[in-house]
């Protein structure tokens, strides 16, 4: 009986939280008009969220690409198909690894930072202070960060995939002797801009909306103590990871299933 009770309680609490989170999301959307006249708020957040994640993404992408290159050559050479390395690296990155890994890294770096920042602002009453000054913190603090996250992650995913493809070239062509011509030409023949690249971008846009929403809401909803903030930050990273992988499955099935 106790198990059922706890299950029911957990479900109710989760639904209530989902409800609050949805109201929060719609309130964010209503803030866009306010920001049209205040682009500097968004630019500042683009710096904090996007520019500061740049090197993390590029270097990670490079190494992932290099590993793909190495593993690819080892595996493909058993079929005598090293020339297809370009397709393998590019397809893996553009369709899957680029959007997903960059989203996971983003959740860990930018997502957790956002949650901690907003939680701390809540704990030090900065959000309440703003409300009493008749300035809506949703519009001034939260919405710029949402838009910045929405713009940054797809750009970062593109950077990740590009770095990875170059990394694959570095490992496969320069280090292991695959022919550079086949690397690029086979890739170009097989990767379709709309089916592969655009689908990858759509994936990262979906991830961007979800991760930034989770990060901002967990901070906004956090219990304003140091323990509460640390738990909220953990929840951001963990929940983002689950959601990314779940939606990746969903989107892959929808987008690539028809082939």
């Amino acid at each position, binding site marked *: 009986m106790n198990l059922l009770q706890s299950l029911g309680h957990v479900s109710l609490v989760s639904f209530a939280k989902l409800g609050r989170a949805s109201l929060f999301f719609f309130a964010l959307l209503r803030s866009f008009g306010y920001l049209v006249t205040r682009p*500097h*708020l968004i*630019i*500042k957040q*683009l*710096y904090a969220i*996007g*520019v500061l994640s*740049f090197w993390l993404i590029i270097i990670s992408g490079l190494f992932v690409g290099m590993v793909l290159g190495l593993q690819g050559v080892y595996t493909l050479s058993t079929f005598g198909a090293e020339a297809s390395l370009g397709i393998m690296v*590019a397809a893996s990155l*553009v369709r899957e690894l680029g959007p997903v890994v960059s989203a996971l890294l983003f959740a860990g770096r930018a997502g957790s930072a956002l949650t901690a920042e907003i939680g701390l602002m809540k704990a030090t009453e900065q959000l309440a202070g703003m409300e009493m000054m008749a300035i809506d913190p949703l519009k001034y603090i939260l919405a710029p960060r949402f838009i910045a996250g929405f*713009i940054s992650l797809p*750009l*970062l995913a*593109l*950077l990740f*995939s*590009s770095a990875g*493809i170059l990394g694959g070239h570095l490992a496969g062509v320069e280090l292991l002797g695959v022919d550079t011509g086949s690397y*690029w030409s086979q*890739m*170009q*023949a*097989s*990767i*379709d*801009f709309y089916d*592969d*690249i655009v689908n990858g971008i759509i994936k990262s846009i979906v991830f961007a909306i979800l991760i930034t929403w989770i990060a901002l809401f967990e901070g906004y909803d956090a219990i304003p103590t140091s323990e509460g903030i640390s738990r909220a930050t953990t929840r951001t990273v963990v929940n983002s990871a689950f959601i990314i992988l779940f939606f990746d499955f969903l989107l892959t099935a929808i987008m690539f299933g028809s082939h």
Partner: protein
Amino acid sequence: MIHNKSLEILVGLFVSISIAALFFMALQVSNFNGLQANTSYEITANFENVSGLKDKALISMAGVPIGRVSQIQFNPEDYNARVTLQIDSQYNQLPSDTSASILTAGLLGEKYIGLTAGGMDEYLQAGDSIELTQSSLVLEQLISQFLFNKSDD
């Protein structure tokens, strides 16, 4: 609100590099040719068997890509498959007795349509149909043919 000039420059750099990455992906990595005004015209071809041929499969002539398959339909009148071929407009001088075969690219590769020129002076126009077609090879039929021939020995 006083904002740092260098902050804006860095953000601008970030966005530009990302857009450059997008162009890199589009041009170097994929077969993007959407910027060229690609007009095309459509012709049809009837095949007995198109198994393995897919939508958007390549159409090539002398090994050069000249178009894509836009539609594959079952024709209930003659129980054949009717394939709609979308040929780039610049290749508008295909003789009207051009033949179409369904071929395989590489060993495990995908099916594509190869066109071979005939000798007529008239050219295929939009809506025309290719008469001479060669269906795709079905493995089972090949094997049964081979066995049949073998049994003659």
